[in-house]
């Protein structure tokens, strides 16, 4: 097993389903956010659950799957547009085993399962990222892009580079699970 990643116990709140949320993350409108379980939200992340769709009833703004990681200083906010003359924010759905690197800004509409997003990326509004895709560090994805399954995107503006190997799903799954296992509280001596 690789070296554990320690965090100070007082900094993170752990839920019954194993989500670990930093106290130093900014989470607006938590009642509109769903975490799937075993998801880590790092220090300095900003998650905007307050930008909800208008209309009656309960609105889910951001849903994250299992074994996700929201890196340090990440900003996650739902995308907005006007549709038939009405302005609205639209919900953001993120699958399982998704890692988002530090300081990335994500305004995607949908992100599939087993997706890796690097550091310092800008993911434009209403982007759709399919399963097992990979976004390299420092990539800028323009709004309304669709990133197909098993593709590797990089650059500014983000362009297709190559196909990901067929084993991506297993590799990413093992890595995200491994990360969660290694992410443990520091026991003071």
């Amino acid at each position, binding site marked *: 097993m690789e070296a554990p990643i320690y965090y100070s116990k007082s900094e993170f709140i752990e839920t019954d389903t194993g989500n670990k949320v930093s106290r130093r993350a900014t989470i*607006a409108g938590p009642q509109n956010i769903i975490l799937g379980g075993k998801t880590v939200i790092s220090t300095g992340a900003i998650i905007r659950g*307050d930008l909800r769709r208008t209309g009656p009833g309960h609105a889910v703004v951001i849903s994250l799957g299992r074994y996700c990681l929201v890196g340090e200083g990440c*900003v996650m906010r739902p995308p907005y547009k006007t549709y038939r003359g009405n302005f609205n924010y639209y919900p953001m759905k993120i699958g399982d085993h998704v890692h988002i690197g530090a300081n990335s*800004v994500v305004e995607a509409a949908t992100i599939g399962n087993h997706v890796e997003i690097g550091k310092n990326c*800008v993911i434009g509004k209403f982007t759709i990222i399919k399963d097992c895709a990979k976004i390299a560090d420092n990539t800028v994805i323009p709004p309304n892009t669709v990133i197909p399954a098993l593709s590797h995107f990089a650059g*500014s503006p983000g362009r297709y580079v190559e196909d990901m190997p067929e084993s991506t799903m297993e590799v990413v799954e093992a890595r995200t699970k491994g990360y969660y296992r290694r992410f443990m509280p520091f026991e003071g001596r």
Partner: protein
Amino acid sequence: MPPIRDKYTIHSKAVVCQDVELKGDITIGSGTIVHPKATIFAIAGPIVIGSNNIIEEGAIIVNRQARKEVMRIGDDNLFEIGCRVESPSVGNFNTVSTRARVHHTVRLASFCVVGAGCLVVPTEDEVLDDYTVIYGPAAERRKWTGRGKVQEADLRRKHAEYLREMLPKFNRLRRGDGT
């Protein structure tokens, strides 16, 4: 250097979240929205922000020129997530996109767009004309024909209207000194 005196004048119709870092002499006009985690630093001189601007989370607005001028920001501008603006004057209806950086040597006229992640850092003083668009990794420039201007203005207006209604429901707001 004398210590910076804090003086915030926030219009009663502006929406400024509690979790915003302010420093120095700042005036915020009516209908302007400042999201949580934004930063406005009036270090060298005061900052005057007009009406109906939207300043998103992580945006940094700094006045730090040597001449101690007032930094003036017009109306209906949009400063997106994590952008940094130091320009001494900003006109109306500009968009500074996510992670863009505008240096203190640049003045923005009106209807300019600075694309995502662009750096605008000329060594000489410069004024960006109306309708200038800066885009791409090399910060290339071209002119906007003005097509879709009405639609864009409409979107901006509705966005601000929506935020003015929704933000106070979930965030605590900050009031000015004089209320």
